[in-house]
């Protein structure tokens, strides 16, 4: 145990709520952005998958919305320590997006309007654990929360769920994204409390 804070007793989380270490529960939906919220007209929106050389797949909003969708219930864990449980989303599974693409790439960089990027092992985008979400709580996703569409990858800290997504680049080598270049962990598993670079 570290230094005991004399007179501090804390306010324990309700016993039946299981949170990752160091997180506290919020019912709010805080908004944290590194820059301005981009305005993206749906008629100009597009989403691509590329390998750094060639565009492998491309959707506009109409063709994207013709893809099969799923309803998702997910717990969100932000590295700034708030967690929000049982959120409801609608989105297109990354299994659908990546399904027909053949590649031996092992990593991905997710790119956003506004030039935000975040990196992931490609395997984390597959197997029913990541979506391109466009509705939250039965309403179109608000711009401040990443609308028209954002990545939703709830098993990692929320900075990995890039807002305002515009594409995925398949990579043969891991390349740190925006926050990953600025002191945050490369992978970001909340249950292993991988907040900052250097955390195990």
């Amino acid at each position: 145990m570290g230094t005991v804070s004399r007179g501090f007793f804390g306010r324990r989380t309700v016993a039946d709520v299981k949170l990752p270490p160091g997180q506290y529960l919020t019912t709010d939906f805080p908004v944290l952005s590194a820059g301005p919220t981009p305005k993206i007209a749906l008629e100009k929106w597009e989403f691509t998958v590329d390998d750094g050389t060639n565009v492998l797949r491309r959707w506009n909003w109409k063709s994207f919305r013709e893809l099969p969708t799923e309803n998702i219930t997910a717990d969100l864990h932000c590295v700034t320590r708030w967690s929000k449980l049982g959120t409801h989303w609608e989105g297109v599974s990354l299994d659908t997006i990546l399904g027909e693409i053949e590649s031996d790439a092992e990593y991905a960089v997710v790119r956003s309007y506004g030039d935000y990027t975040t990196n992931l092992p490609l395997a984390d985008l597959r197997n029913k654990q990541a979506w391109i979400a466009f509705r939250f709580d039965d309403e179109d996703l608000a711009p401040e929360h990443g609308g028209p569409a954002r990545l939703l990858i709830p098993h990692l800290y929320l900075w990995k769920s890039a807002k305002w997504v515009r594409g995925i680049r398949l990579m043969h080598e891991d390349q740190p994204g925006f926050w990953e270049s600025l002191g945050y962990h490369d992978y970001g598993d909340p249950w292993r409390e991988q907040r900052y670079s250097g955390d195990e």
Partner: protein
Amino acid sequence: MMWRVGTVVALHDETPTARTITLQVVDWPSHVAGQHVDVRLTAPDGYSAVRSYSLASAPNAEGRVELTVERLPDGEVSPYLTQELAVGERLELRGPIGGWFVWRSRQTEPIQLIAGGSGIVPLMGMIRSRAAAGGTVYKGHPEGLAATAWPHRRICYRRDDLVFQANPDLLRVRSHIIRRKCCCPACRLREPP
């Protein structure tokens, strides 16, 4: 990132709800203005709670770290830090954290700073860094501070008035949005009390 222990060497109430905590930290690796730290409180039974707080102090070689903490009515950690913590006690922290929302001394371009409530804390770290770097370095490029404050949630940093009076080129208020007369040093310079 390792946890360090800081000793509380001074406490100062900036407002009825915000307190500045000055810590002396052994082997503090220094920081860049705008960065934050994680603070960990531990109860006698081992339960602990961690929160992040912005650094209000300019980088310095003396291992001195200042945090300004706004007390949240339903907070778990901020009431302890603003009401219970006493001079001489020890506090665990780790950092500095964050490489994006920062100001480095080599950046000499004019900047505009806009804050709401306790959001002024990291901006004061930047303003104090500029003051420490020497006001004349930035002559002709006074930064602007726009403080948005609520009547009960305003952090004033009155103790900086002398610094700003000595460095008239350092800080210029371009606008401020408040509901009542502001008490921040910048406004006090423009409208002496």
